[in-house]
């Protein structure tokens, strides 16, 4: 199987080169076919690798440069199920986006497909590589393709500013990562993840290790849009075409979390395992903060893509908690959550694209009631929103339940209600928007929501059944995540393997294979607590959505104090999300200095 390992990356890249070379020579339909074939090939090979990796971790050394004397020489792709799963999610969503774009952006031209393919190939490369500098290379390719895609519609200032904010923030993050890589290389003289971890094993953490951890984690958290590093994300989403948003929200941010997971468990765990508690507390705090902040900001938006973008930030916070708890069940939960979220959020963005095609607008208030003409789309939108709230056995529920149980096992029992509130509030925002657009509920004006510059989208002609078809397929897959038999157990086993540094080193440097037992095929059982939290999330979502719509019908006795209590913090939050790149980089510096400072105090003990 090792021969297939480079192919999820190589096939899209070759297709991109071919499509570019033939752009002026080949008939247009043939060029389209090359694009789809590249994406489909990448997806197919990712699935093949995912299935193979469940039995054994797959390994290939580029150029045949095998390790000598127990130390790596070349660059390896190491596919464990978690990485291969992300590669499959990424290439699958690229395929869906390209198919959707066929009728959504007919005039986009060849460069659009090519950039999508490069974006997908780079994400797969990042997910599969076992070398820390190679991670940086794919990270940058992913970034460069994404910046160009974000600024794709260059006729307005908004998209350009969004793309610049995105490019500068993420480039700063990339340099943090590179500095962290340089520090690890200075200490260990190695770039292979297994090698670095092996050299660090048993050494107490000093300044170099702690700062390398800080730089790598903060660099990846910029990509993962975790507060206070998240400011670029809503700008980039607000401006990118809907199918591009699918990739940004569905997988690109997930890549950031995989970066944190991979680096922690293959490298830093070797040195920091005794102080894992302190690593955990800082990351859990960041995750909770992000989950709540993103949810509140989502509730304040009226631009649908921006609203969904903030909801993504909230879910990234929840997933970070899963990663940060550092146990097998929570990490598996984060993976399940991100899988369901990626698919569901993708389908919601695709719904927005359809609204844009039909009504040439994407503003919640201006679209008031117009969605009544599209009942099928309304149902899909509503299902997506409810499935994100954690309704038992639907969509993201499984991930939530696993994270909740992980937190309970770790003895951190205050986390679950906060995560429930975050999921509820961000779903409430989506439900409120859906009710206003598709049911015509609530007033047509609301001063609470952020004013948006009106933008006229370019004219589009599209085949509605094709768009609805792609959207429906993605939605159904997302809804089914929580009830797919055996999925929970398999993902948890995958998470366990991603955490097993010793087995990883054995596999990569000593070619020793540890086969995994086959997990049982059954729907994952969850605790009563999780079911209650899930129901709670839905109740919050529905209740708050109604409050958002009919706030003015509340008695002044309730409304007055509410306004007094929430007004100033909301104004402050808005001011912080200023859209100015200088502010964003200032917040990145603040966040990195604080995280690094806290770890410097805690981890040296």
């Amino acid at each position, binding site marked *: 199987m090792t021969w297939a390992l480079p192919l999820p990356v190589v096939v899209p890249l070759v297709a991109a080169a071919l499509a570019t070379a033939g752009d002026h020579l080949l008939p247009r339909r043939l060029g389209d076919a090359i694009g789809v074939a590249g994406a489909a090939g990448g997806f197919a090979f990712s699935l093949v690798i995912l299935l193979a990796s469940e039995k054994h971790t797959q390994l290939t050394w580029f*150029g045949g440069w095998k390790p000598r004397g127990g130390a790596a020489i070349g660059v390896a792709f190491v596919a464990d199920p978690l990485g291969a799963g992300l590669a499959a999610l990424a290439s699958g969503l690229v395929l869906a986006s390209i198919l959707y774009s066929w009728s959504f952006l007919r005039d986009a031209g060849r460069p659009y497909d090519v950039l999508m393919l490069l974006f997908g190939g780079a994400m797969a490369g990042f997910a599969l590589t076992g070398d820390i500098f190679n991670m940086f290379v794919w990270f940058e390719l992913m970034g460069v393709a994404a910046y160009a895609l974000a600024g794709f519609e260059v006729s307005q200032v908004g998209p350009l500013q969004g793309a610049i904010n995105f490019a500068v923030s993420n480039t700063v993050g990339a340099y943090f990562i590179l500095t962290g890589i340089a520090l690890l290389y200075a200490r260990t003289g190695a770039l292979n993840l297994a090698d670095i971890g092996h050299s660090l094993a048993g050494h107490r953490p000093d300044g170099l290790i702690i*700062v390398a951890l800080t730089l790598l984690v903060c660099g990846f958290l910029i990509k993962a849009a975790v507060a206070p590093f998240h400011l670029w994300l809503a700008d980039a989403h607000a401006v990118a075409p809907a199918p591009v948003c699918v990739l940004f929200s569905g997988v690109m941010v997930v890549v950031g979390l995989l970066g944190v997971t991979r680096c922690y468990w293959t490298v830093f765990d070797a040195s920091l395992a005794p102080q894992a508690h302190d690593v955990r507390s800082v990351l859990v705090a960041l995750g909770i903060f992000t989950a709540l902040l993103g949810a509140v900001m989502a509730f304040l938006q009226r631009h649908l893509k921006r609203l969904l973008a903030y909801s993504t930030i909230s879910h990234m916070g929840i997933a970070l908690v899963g990663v940060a708890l550092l146990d097998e069940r929570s990490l598996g939960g984060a993976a399940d959550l991100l899988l369901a979220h990626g698919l569901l959020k993708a389908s919601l963005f695709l719904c927005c694209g359809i609204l844009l095609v039909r009504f040439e607008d994407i503003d919640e208030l201006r679209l008031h009631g117009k969605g009544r003409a599209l009942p099928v789309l309304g149902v899909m939108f509503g299902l997506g929103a409810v499935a994100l709230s954690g309704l038992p056995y639907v969509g993201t529920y499984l991930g939530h339940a696993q994270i909740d149980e992980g937190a309970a096992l770790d003895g951190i029992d205050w986390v679950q209600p906060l995560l429930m509130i975050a999921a509820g509030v961000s779903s409430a925002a989506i439900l409120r928007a859906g009710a206003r657009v598709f049911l015509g509920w609530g007033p047509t004006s609301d001063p609470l929501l952020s004013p948006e510059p009106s933008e006229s989208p370019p004219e589009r002609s599209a085949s509605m059944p094709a768009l609805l078809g792609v959207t429906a397929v993605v939605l159904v897959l997302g809804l089914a995540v929580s009830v797919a038999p055996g999925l929970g157990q398999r993902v948890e086993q995958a998470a366990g393997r991603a955490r097993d540094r010793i087995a990883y080193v054995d596999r990569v440097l000593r070619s020793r294979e540890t086969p995994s037992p086959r997990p049982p095929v059954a729907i994952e059982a969850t605790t009563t607590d999780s079911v209650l939290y899930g129901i709670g999330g839905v109740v919050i979502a529905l209740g708050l959505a109604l409050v958002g719509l009919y706030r003015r019908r509340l008695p002044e006795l309730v409304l007055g104090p509410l306004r007094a209590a929430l007004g100033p913090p909301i104004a402050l939050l808005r001011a912080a999300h200023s859209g100015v790149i200088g*502010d964003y980089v200032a917040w990145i510096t603040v966040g990195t200095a604080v995280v690094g400072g806290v770890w410097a105090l805690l981890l040296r003990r």
Partner: protein
Amino acid sequence: MTRRVRIGLFLPALAGFGALLVWAYTGIPSFGDYQGPYGFVLEKISAPLRHMDNVVNATTYDIRGIDTMGEEFILFAAVIGVVLLLRDDAGRSQDVEDDIGSDVVRVFGTLAIGAAILVGLWLVANGFVTPGGGFQGGVAIASGGLLLYLVAGYREWSAFGNETVLDPIKAIGAGGYVVIGLAALVGGLPFLTNFFGGGDIGTVWSGGSAGFVNWSAGIEVAAANVLLFSEFLEEYIVPIARGS
């Protein structure tokens, strides 16, 4: 957030960030005491196994060739992005005046074009022997193209400095890199395996199939850079020609 608030928030954080960096850097082995082992291992194996004198390029194009493949595609993607962003809906202007009058400029310029391209080719060819290689040579060749603009004017430049000509070349360069890698895979070897043997050490023929990789990188870099320059020049020239 006003500028004052931003800077008041930022400066203390920057001080803290700087302190963290300095703290980390004190943990690096003292300057000049690089401990290895990675680099030392590569120095030992690259001449005997690969007949390459230049260990840096042996690393870049062979041992860590996959990094360079990614790098070529970064350049590829960025140039596509720039072309996309700077595309001019009005199309290329054909009525730009050729304002280079001096024969001296033309003569020296023409000589300089030849020199730049020769230097570029030499740098690519000798990549595994002396400093240089696909990237440096490619940019040098592209700068020769840039000089053509100075010498011959915009019209001649735009005859080849456009996407129709350069896109295929760029794509063949980047795609060729991958295809060489795939050739090894089809032959049952790991992706990007150097399958021709080393060649004669110390000559332009050293390097085996990594030599082809080096050349395709050179082609890609040259075409991509000419396209990049062309787009930026376009941005400068066309509006001026139209405005006046």
